[in-house]
């Protein structure tokens, strides 16, 4: 099995440890990675999507072409990339005029968008394509005794009808939960699981409001779940929750800091990945959690 890895700006430049986590864990589970050389920005919401539909779709379609030309599907760890790519794919699929326009633009580059490649989010791809038992059997370490709270991320959920690996009930998602349980984690529910983390346009527009929004969520996590770790399905959520906690703590708005990792990082750790490589860039310390995972008693 082979898949094109769409890295995304935030992962490539901000959290390359997450990129390493994917590069480590996918092959371990028998999924070969293709680099989709020459991939660009998805492009993200505040840029081309906010300028024009055809231009947005053309940039996105070019990224799809890279996969199509090799007969591959695409996976990404970033919710924004996932959403932006899936939304344009949906538009291109249902709007022949748009498709013609986009192919008109791509023609000059010697490319043609066919619509054969799909885009998956990294966790959903494993859930759909890999036997969950295989994941279980490949583990070197387990998360037994670790309580986690989940942050699937808006883009893995909505708008559900455009995704190929959608949840049955997007308001009560279970893919990330099942996948965490496969690693042996104890998943604690909390009422604001599907609330937005505050990353994205809002963080750029008004950091304080963005962090306050996250704070409401963090309180719900702390009070209702009190987990050892927050697990995200999206790189943007990862960055937001990881970096904002320090600030909120400094401002006296929270009295705790909860380690946070993307699911792929946690998976890589459980498969025996080197912590410095696959989870070495966290701002909110994850060493306690990592020690617990890799502790002898846990092997």
């Amino acid at each position, binding site marked *: 099995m082979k898949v094109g890895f769409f*890295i995304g700006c935030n992962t490539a430049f901000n959290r390359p440890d997450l990129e390493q986590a994917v590069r480590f864990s996918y092959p371990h589970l028998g999924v070969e990675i293709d680099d989709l050389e020459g991939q660009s920005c998805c492009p*993200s919401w505040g840029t081309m999507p906010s300028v024009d539909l055809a231009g947005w779709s053309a940039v996105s379609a070019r990224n799809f072409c890279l996969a199509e030309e090799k007969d591959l599907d695409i996976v990404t760890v970033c919710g924004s990339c996932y959403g932006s790519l899936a939304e344009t794919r949906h538009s291109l699929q249902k709007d022949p005029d748009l498709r013609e326009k986009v192919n008109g633009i791509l023609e000059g*580059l010697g490319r043609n968008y066919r619509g054969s490649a799909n885009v998956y989010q990294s966790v959903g791809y494993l859930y759909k394509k890999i036997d969950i038992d295989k994941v279980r059997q490949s583990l070197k370490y387990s998360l037994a005794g670790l309580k986690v709270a989940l942050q699937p991320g*808006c883009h893995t959920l909505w708008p559900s009808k455009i995704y190929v690996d959608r949840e049955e009930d997007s308001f009560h998602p279970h893919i990330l939960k099942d996948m965490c349980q496969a690693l042996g984690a104890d998943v604690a529910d909390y009422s604001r699981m599907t609330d937005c983390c505050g990353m994205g346009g809002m963080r750029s527009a*008004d950091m304080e409001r963005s962090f306050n929004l996250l704070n409401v969520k963090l309180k719900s996590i702390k009070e209702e779940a009190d987990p050892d770790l927050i697990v995200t399905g999206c790189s943007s959520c990862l960055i937001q929750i990881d970096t904002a906690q320090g600030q909120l703590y400094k401002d006296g708005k929270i009295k705790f800091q909860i380690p946070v990792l993307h699911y792929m990082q946690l998976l890589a750790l459980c498969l025996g990945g080197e912590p410095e490589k696959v989870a070495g*860039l966290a701002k909110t310390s994850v060493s306690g959690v990592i020690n617990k995972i890799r502790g002898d008693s846990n092997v």
Partner: protein
Amino acid sequence: MISESENIVFNLSEGEPRFVAQIKELGGEEILECIQCGKCAAVCPMALAGFPIFNKKLIQAIFLGAREALLDDSSIWACQSCNRCTEICPRDVRPFEIILAMRRVAVREFAVPAMSVEGLKSLYDVGHAVYLKDSGQTRQKVGLPEKPPSVIAFPKALKELQAILHQSALWEIGIIPMEGNEMADTCEV
């Protein structure tokens, strides 16, 4: 309708009559399906974080043609693109697409926050909307090559991307400097 506004009273007869049509052309096709039920606003992160304009209100303001007031307010750029509104709208309005359409109007009026202009510039110049200068070191720290296998590492690919952008509305609007585009040099952003 906008709290910071000096004009407390919005004069309905000053509404821009063609506004709805423009929004529809720019991707907000379903705007007139909205019945102002407020379901989208109930869960919109923008509303929850206290931004003055968000999906439901934006739609009503467009409906009434409050174009100037909307251009004066930058809330729409705080939209998270979370699409929760699109998921739950009982009328299939796809409110997020209306936000995008309003942003497209704003872009054409150069009413764009600096961050977005930066993002567009970066997309054009390096092929990534988000790019951190010292990322090479970070990547090496975790054992990765300095550059990811993206446009960053493949100049030909970047040219391809730029060629696409040259054919997009970005070129006509001229909101960022682009190779060979005179307009961009003359406008202030």
